[in-house]
């Protein structure tokens, strides 16, 4: 099930970079976002999957398509700059490093970690079941431990809204 989702996702991510039409690459980007949302459902993060559909597929891709339609020469795609070969080599190198470090690390996964500590073994069932009912725990975490970051993100969104409006508004010659 994982590879059924992952392989089209990788292919559409490649097509975002390699497509010769900007509009088509935006559509492939939407496919990739939907794939990420399905991966979140596989990882038992249903709330994040819905948020992903709402924010990415609903808002960000629409913004990007607006930006594509406002600029000319869509059909010429995005040509490569002079760093094409070296950036390909660099990203392959980064991929090798990531792949080897992911492969050789001995992860503390939920199956092979030692949970026999006396304090933990009492609520081992609730540890195993936390992902089946995650939204109340997520809300609790967001409004207690991460309260400050939550407020800062709201300030950031307001600042982005005001900044975007100011940038788009331009110079009004009657108002000077």
């Amino acid at each position, binding site marked *: 099930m994982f590879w059924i989702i992952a392989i089209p996702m990788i292919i559409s991510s490649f097509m975002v970079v390699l497509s010769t039409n900007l509009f088509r690459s935006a559509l492939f980007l939407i496919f990739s976002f939907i794939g990420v949302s399905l991966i979140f459902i596989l990882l038992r993060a249903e709330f994040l999957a819905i948020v992903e559909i709402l924010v990415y597929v609903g808002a960000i891709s629409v913004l990007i398509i607006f930006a594509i339609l406002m600029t000319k020469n869509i059909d010429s795609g995005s040509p490569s700059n002079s760093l094409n070969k070296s950036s390909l080599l660099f990203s392959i190198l980064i991929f090798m490093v990531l792949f080897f470090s992911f492969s050789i690390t001995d992860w*503390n996964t939920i199956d092979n970690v030692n949970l026999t500590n006396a304090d*933990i073994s009492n609520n081992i069932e609730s540890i195993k079941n936390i992902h089946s009912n995650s939204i109340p725990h997520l809300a609790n975490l967001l409004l207690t431990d991460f309260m400050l970051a939550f407020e800062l993100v709201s300030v950031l969104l307001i600042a982005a809204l005001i900044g975007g409006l100011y940038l788009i508004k*331009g110079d009004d010659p009657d108002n000077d």
Partner: protein
Amino acid sequence: MLQNYLFLSAVIFCIGLYGVLSKKNAITILMCVELMLNAINISAVAFSRYIINPFNLINGNIDSLLTGQVLAMFVIAVAAAEVAIGVAILVTVYKNRQTAYVTEGNILKY
């Protein structure tokens, strides 16, 4: 299986990295930045699904198992702000210089 998700995340991150480093059009660069942030989200949620740190669970604070999902939510919010500002800058540059290529925006070069 944790390694599968991390592998997928690494592949998508490197595709986005290649696009960011090698493309001329600013819209494609924005799209590739979105791909990279999505790869980070996948790996954060996969870690929060599979990894357990027993030292954090001594107090019975099992909510801390979901920290990766909270991180992914913050990343989504920051990505929304980033793409809004990016598109606004792109439209402003396009109004002034009639190009969306980042290689032609070098008026400060000389």
